[in-house]
Structure formats: C-alpha cells, structure tokens
C-alpha cells in the first residue's frame, strides 16, 4: 500500500456487505432507552440558554474481568456504567455536565449545569471555540465486526477455558506458577448534536493473557502469551484470530530457555523487532507524538507535549524512507475502530508519516478548525458517559512493504544482533524523545541465524534516531495487529483501547542496556 493511495481521507462508515452475514444487531435494551427524548430535552434546553453548540451522549459500558492464579479463579467482577452527558459551547466557552439519571428532567438540568460550568470557566478563557464542519448523519447505526458477545457465553465455559489453558502451563516442567486474566467489554453509544446528527453504535472487545512463572535458585522469571487484545468476541478464545492452545504449548520451553539464557552484553546491536513488541514502540513514539493536542500544548502539564511540533508538518524527517504510518478508525477488529467518533465525525483513514516525513496529525473538530485542516479526521473519544470527549488515538499502524522481506530474511541480514519478541516494560519522556523498552523474549542473532535466548535486555533510543535507523520493513505476511486496552491520557484520566498494526522490521545499531548493570551498585 503506497502513501498515495492513502493520501485522501476516505469515509468508511457504510459497512461492507460481508458484515451482514455475521454482524450482530444493536442491543435491544440499549435501543429501548428513551434516547430521542433525552436528546430533545437536553438540546432544546441548551438552545433556550443560548448555546451555539450542544451535544448529548448516552453511553453504556459493560465490563468484565476474571483473574486466575494457578488452579483457582481469583477475581470475578462485572460492572456496568450507564449515563448521560451534555456538552455545550456557551458564549464561546465549553461547558460539560454528566449524570446517571436517564430522565428528560435530568437531561435538561444537565444542559443547565453545563452552561454553569461554562460560566465559571469564562474568566479563564480568551478565545472562542470554533468547530470544523462535518456532514450530518441522521439516525446512523454501526456495529463492530465480532461474532459472539462474551456476555452471552455461559460463565462456566469462560472460566473453564482459561483454567484449561492455565492448567496446561502448570502441568509443564519448569512452570511453578501460572496466572491468567480475561477482560471483555460491550460498549453502546448514542450521540446527537444540535446540527441534526444522531448515531447509535455498538462495539465488543476482548483480551486474554497467560503468564508462566519459574522460581528457582536464580530467583524468578516469567514469560507470557503474545495474543493481542482485539475487537472480536468470544470466538477469539475458541480459535478465530488466534490459536491459544498452540501458543500455550510453546511457553514452557521458551521460559526454560530464558532461565538458562546468558545476560546480554551492553552495546549497540542491530535489532529485528517482531510486531508483538514493535506495536508498543509505535504507540509511544509515533501514536502519542502525532496527537495534535499534545503538539499544541493541551497536554503539557500531564501526558506531555510532542517533539513533532506543528511548524514541522510536511518537513520533519521522522524516520527512514521505508516508514509509512497511517491512522484509521476503520480496520476490522481494531480497538479504536468505530463508525462515528464522539463528535459525530465519520470514520476515516489518513496518513501521518509518508516516506519518513511527518504529513499529518490526529484531530478533533476544534483543532481541525483552529489549524485550518478543514475537517476533523475523527479522533474524538470519551471513555465513559461521565467524561468529556477529547482527542484520542486512532489505530496507528506501520505499513508493510509490498516487496518486503520475511522475518527470517530480515534476520539473515544481521551479523550481530537481537531479535525481540513481545512487549513488557515501556517508558518514554514527556516530549516523546527518549524511550526505553524491554520485551518478553530476546534471541541472539549471530551471522544471520538465531543463536539462543538472551536476558536482561532493554533497548533505548531517541525517537527520530530510532526510526531513521529502520532499514527495512517486512512484507504483508509478517504484519500483525497488536494493541492495548489501556492507553491513558487526560485529566480527569481516561483510558482508551487502540490497535497498532505493523510488520517485522530491521533497525541498525540501536543502544542496548544490560538491566542488571542499571540501578544500585
């Protein structure tokens, strides 16, 4: 896929026909809520109070979490959040209020409280809020691409499946303990604004991880499954999109090799990085760095700013020429995929980095207007009905090369290096310059071949140095859609699910630390 093919925003809110066969319907109990009446009450009150813009969001989140420790279920907790929020622009100032009472009286009162917050905020505001135009979508609906809602699967089947996998780990030599966790979410959103857009949407996502622990004279060591969280349903645990049984079967041998592995010698190494590790490096050093709210300073006191400042748009040599990064809210099973964002903007795909040059940012409607982009690319998101929509990360992905190498071919191009698999520890500074990552497994590369595991490895770099050192990206067959449930940003803090696809990639002469040599002496 070339950058030219992706240069224009494309709307994909209309769902392709192949979804029709498997696409679940909007949840009846959510659709049965008085969505239209709540919306009418809040929006009419906002109009009466002189608001130039108003929007209503009714949201229901169902969340489940199970954790398992060795042979036992340790935590079994479900939760549900259902609420209503109103956001207004009053005298050019934002105001927001939220509550859980879904009555028309409450909706109207929220419009009043949103105006009150705007009034308290007036002395702190200099400019006037303007929003980029967006087409109106009346009565639009959208449902994500999953097959089986995990909330509709029998509890015994779910706990039994995870315990079965945990038992498989525990039965293997060298595994002293095993932990498993399972999380899944069923999300419904209704949105309406004064312009006439109203959308009703539904998403499902799931995550399962299993960790094996070895305890011995050496201390302890762990390794875990690489199965990424995904926008799928329970089918993910039963063979669609991932083979958990096959992966679990490999874990004990990998753990034993890790325990026996020599400690790495610090220095500069060529790295071949598997997507299960590289997705997180993309998230931290590209995903967050291309958020325009960070570049403009809105996150300066908390999440931080970005070295990729707005004046460098179209000029910054972010990485090597093989680096092509897209943002999207439309890829199948993407955690940030949705039909319409939380400002009523339809899903799109867009370029962030083309041929190594910074060419775009993630936007919401206010920033799109402020910086002259014409239209938002649909990156507004609120993690719950009680939180304000802010600019959040879409799926941000590194594109593979059409004629790219296999992972084995990338490794064969390395004389002295390390092949890194799986994410573990991550940290990056507040302008997204300096980062340090570890991983689940590190394999020594000697003269183009894997030569056993290493341990105590961390790689550390400055973002642009690292991406400019990327010599090659793998082909489409090496591409994996990774991701995370828990990207944090904003105050009050919000978490967002997001996916990152990438191929395997080859980096030259990256600084590798020996973590045993760090810290106290």
């Amino acid at each position: 896929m070339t950058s030219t093919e992706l240069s224009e925003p494309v709307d994909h809110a209309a769902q392709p026909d192949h979804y029709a066969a498997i696409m679940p319907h909007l949840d009846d109990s959510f659709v049965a809520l008085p969505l239209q009446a709540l919306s009418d009450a809040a929006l009419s009150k906002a109009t009466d109070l002189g608001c130039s813009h108003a929007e209503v969001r009714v949201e229901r989140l169902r969340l489940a979490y199970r954790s398992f420790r060795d042979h036992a279920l340790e935590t079994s907790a479900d939760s549900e959040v259902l609420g209503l929020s109103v956001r207004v622009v009053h005298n050019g100032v934002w105001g927001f209020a939220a509550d859980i009472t879904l009555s028309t009286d409450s909706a109207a009162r929220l419009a009043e409280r949103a105006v009150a917050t705007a009034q308290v905020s007036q002395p702190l505001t200099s400019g006037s809020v303007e929003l980029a135009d967006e087409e109106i979508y009346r009565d639009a609906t959208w449902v994500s691409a999953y097959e089986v809602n995990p909330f509709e699967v029998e509890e015994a089947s779910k706990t039994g499946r995870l315990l079965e996998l945990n038992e498989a780990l525990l039965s293997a030599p060298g595994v002293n303990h095993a932990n498993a966790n399972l999380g899944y979410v069923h999300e419904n959103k209704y949105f309406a604004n004064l312009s006439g857009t109203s959308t009703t949407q539904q998403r499902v996502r799931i995550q399962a991880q299993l960790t094996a622990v070895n305890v011995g004279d050496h201390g302890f060591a762990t390794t875990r499954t690489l199965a990424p969280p995904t926008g799928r349903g329970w089918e993910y645990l039963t063979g669609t999109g991932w083979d958990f049984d096959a992966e679990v079967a490999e874990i004990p041998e990998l753990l034993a090799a890790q325990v026996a592995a020599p400690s790495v010698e610090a220095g500069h190494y060529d790295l071949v990085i598997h997507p299960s590790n590289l997705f997180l490096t993309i998230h931290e050093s590209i995903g967050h760095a291309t958020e325009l709210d960070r570049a403009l300073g809105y996150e300066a006191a908390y999440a931080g700013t970005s070295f990729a400042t707005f004046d460098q748009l179209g000029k910054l040599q972010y990485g090597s020429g093989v680096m092509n990064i897209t943002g999207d809210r439309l890829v199948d099973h993407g955690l940030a995929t949705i039909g319409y964002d939380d400002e009523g903007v339809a899903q799109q795909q867009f370029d962030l980095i083309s041929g190594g040059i910074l060419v775009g940012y993630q936007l919401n409607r206010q920033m799109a207007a402020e910086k002259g982009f014409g239209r938002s690319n649909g990156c507004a998101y609120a993690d719950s009905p009680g939180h304000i929509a802010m600019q959040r990360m879409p799926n941000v992905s590194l594109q593979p090369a059409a004629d790219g190498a296999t992972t084995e071919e990338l490794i064969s191009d390395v004389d002295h290096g390390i092949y890194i698999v799986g994410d573990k520890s991550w940290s990056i500074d507040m302008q997204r310059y300096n980062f340090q990552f570890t991983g689940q497994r590190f394999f020594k590369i000697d003269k183009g071949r894997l030569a056993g595991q290493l341990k105590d490895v961390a790689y550390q770099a400055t973002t642009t140095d690292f991406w400019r050192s990327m010599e090659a990206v793998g082909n489409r067959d090496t591409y994996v859609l990774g991701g995370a449930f828990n990207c944090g940003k904003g105050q009050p803090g919000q978490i967002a699910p997001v996916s990152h696809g990438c191929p395997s990639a080859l980096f030259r002469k990256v600084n590798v630390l020996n973590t045993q040599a760090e810290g106290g002496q």
Partner: protein
Amino acid sequence: MSVQPQDLVERALASASLPCVAWVTERTEANLRWANNALTTNGEMRSRRLTVTATAEVEGGTAAGTVGQEIATADEVSAVVSAAEQLARTGRPAEDAVPLVENYAYNDVWADPAETTSIEVLEELGKGLGVAFKRAEAARHLVYGFAEHVVETIYLGSSTGLRRRGVQPTGRLELNAKTVDLAASAWLGRTTRDFLDIDVAEAAEELSTRLGWASRKVELPPGRYETLLPPAAVADLMIYAYWTANARDAEEGRNVFAAGEGATKIGQRFAELPITLRSDPLYPGLETIPFVNFTSSLDETSWAFDGGLPINATTWIDRGVLRELIRNRGHAARTGSQPTPPPDNLIMDGDGTASLQEMISNTQRGLLLTCLWYIREVDPERLLLTGLTRDGVYLVENGEVVGAVNNFRFNESPIELLGRISEIGVAELTLCREWNDYFNRTIMPAIRVPDFNMSTVSQAS
C-alpha cells in the same frame, strides 16, 4: 435521586438469597483544566454506584462474584444482586475464601446524608487562575494545569449486620509553568480536602522563581550524581514499592520481597537510617476510609471476601527494617498471620528536620530534581524502575542553585535506594506527580542519594 443510598443498600441485602456485602458509592466531582494561559476543559459529574459481592457454596469450596453498576432508581437494585449471585453460583472455588466479616463496633452514623461537591468549589481558584494567567503573559510564561475535587460517600452493609459509612474528599491542584519558548518548565502539586487551603498566587510565584533558575542552562552527560529528590519524587517511588508489597507473591518467590524457599524479607534491614514507611487511615490531614470497600488492591491482592473489614494503621518498614506486607484474611488464616488491608495513604519519615532549602545549602555539588515521570518496572526481581526527570533538574553548587540541567532517564530500585540514602529531610504533606490519579495522600521527606543512576539523557524540556 429521591431514594436514599442507605435504602438502596438495605434493599440489596433484603433481596439477597446468599451471603453478601453491598455498598453504594455516592460520587460528585468538579474539575477545571487549562493550558497556554486559557481554560481547555471543565466538568461537573455525579454518579451513584451499587456494588454487590455475593458468595456461594460450589463444588470444592466457596466462590465469590462481584457486580457493580451505576443505578438511578431503586428498581435496578435487585438485578444487580441477582447478577452477583449468579456470578458466584457459576464461579469456581476461591483459595482465599473465608466467611464474610462479622459485625463489630464502630462509630459511623449510618443515617447521615452523602456529602457532595460542585463546580462552585473551584470558583475562587478560577478567579485566582485568571489573575495568574495575566501575570504569566506579562512575564512571557505559559501556565498549564488541572484542579479537581471529588467527594465520595460510601454506605456499606452486609448480610452479617455491618452498616458502615465513610466520606472521602479528595482534591488536587497541579500547576505547571513554562517559558514561552518551552525551553524551561516548572511544576508543583498540592493535595487538599476542600480547596480552602490553596493559594494560587503563592504557587504561581514559586513557579516563577523556578523558571528564573533556568535562565542559565547546563548540559550534563549521563552518570551517577549526588541527587536531591524532593518529596513528590520520593512519593512516586515509594508508592510503587507499596503497590508491590504483596505477601503471597513474596512467599511464592515472585516479587522483590521474596527471600526464597517460601520465606519473605520481613525482618530484613533495608536501610541503616531510621526510615519508617507506614499507613494510617486516621492520620490527621490524610484521613481515608477505614474499612475495605474494594475487591482488589493495586498490589493485586484480592479482597472479595473482606468487604467491611476494618483497615488499621500498619507500619511496613520500621526504622529501616521490613515489618509487614499486604495480605487478605484468607491468606492470613492459611499462614497464621494477621490480615493487613492497605490504607489509601502512605507516610515516610526518617527523623529528618532539614527543609529542602537547607539540604540545598548543604550541597557542594549535586542535582536537585522536581519530579519523576513515566515510571515503569524493568526488573520485578529487584523492583528496578525506569523513568524520567521532569519539569526542572537544577545544578546545585556550593549550596546554591546555579542553573538548569537537561533531563535524564533513570534506572533505579526504590528498595535498593533505601539503603543508599545519605540524608533525609523533614516529612511534609505531598502530592506525587505520576500516580496522583490513583494515590493522593502522602507525607514524604526529601532525600539525598549520593549516586543516583542517570542512565541516559532526555532531550525533552
């Protein structure tokens, strides 16, 4: 919301057919956020959440299920209870299963109404910020930050007769100032219960002084430096150690507190200096709800069977010696020890009397930090953490700040640091930087470390 929260708890207990604990969390919150000398977002939110943990006898033992839900009407209560009971009945036996907490004596006034907050709590702060923004513009500074006030009232009842009520006000102010070229940055945080003790003008003046320190820039390479960590930085490191203090993990050999072959490091000396690390739900100024109203803690201990359990003061490290780790009742019963539910505050003291300014005055050459950021675990065996310095690293020479230094990435273990601290300052009320979304109540001293490991340089400013 005409129905009272106490009535919701009673209704939940009345509709239960299994042993259960039910609690309602009444939460109100208000916030302001600003950047570049202007407001960016604001809000006022209200919620009411019912959480029910039910326990059921299943094949092989006892299972627990917890369901939490925002509820607007009393009619929704029974569905939450039923869902929790269904989760318990279809669950697997838990290793930590014990009978629910029996009733005991306490002084809560169950009938008292919920306490609340509103956006008006921040009105004076908003006016003060308006003035601060104008002054910042005149000084070519940019001001950023966040203020939040949250009040939660918990009503917890159990089928064993408990009726407990607790109120938790939580407030925080983070103020960040930068020069207009963004080359220098300064930060301070305040923890407050009501915002009546917040002086924005004084805080803004302190930040202005720190930005003045940055008028001279000094580039330093990575290395080991004598370093003064202020209370906010110490808090972030010690909170991470607190969140790791899981007794069962230690006994199983899988955290930094493990001593091997089933033993823990309880009784081992971590510091020669008289460093004490403790938590106390009744500590003046740091009061926190003194009974368990959660099903897991951040060290990953499960409290599913312990709802309503009294949370007592616990000394984790006593004058340098590890004395206690976190364990629930089930694990305590199996190991012949006491349960130690973790209070939501942390107090570190080392008999220090020096202020941070006095510690600066007593420094021949060293670094003075402001705070730490993006702290993550690199090696759980040693609790080796990595992270960045943020919002001002200053060079101290001959007792005075002489300029601002570049930022660094550090790799250090808070447990190993305890044994290398060479001086401890006076302990004071502190808002940590990184973890203040989750942990707001700390009293911490500044510390001097003779060889803090600045692993690499960060270009961030």
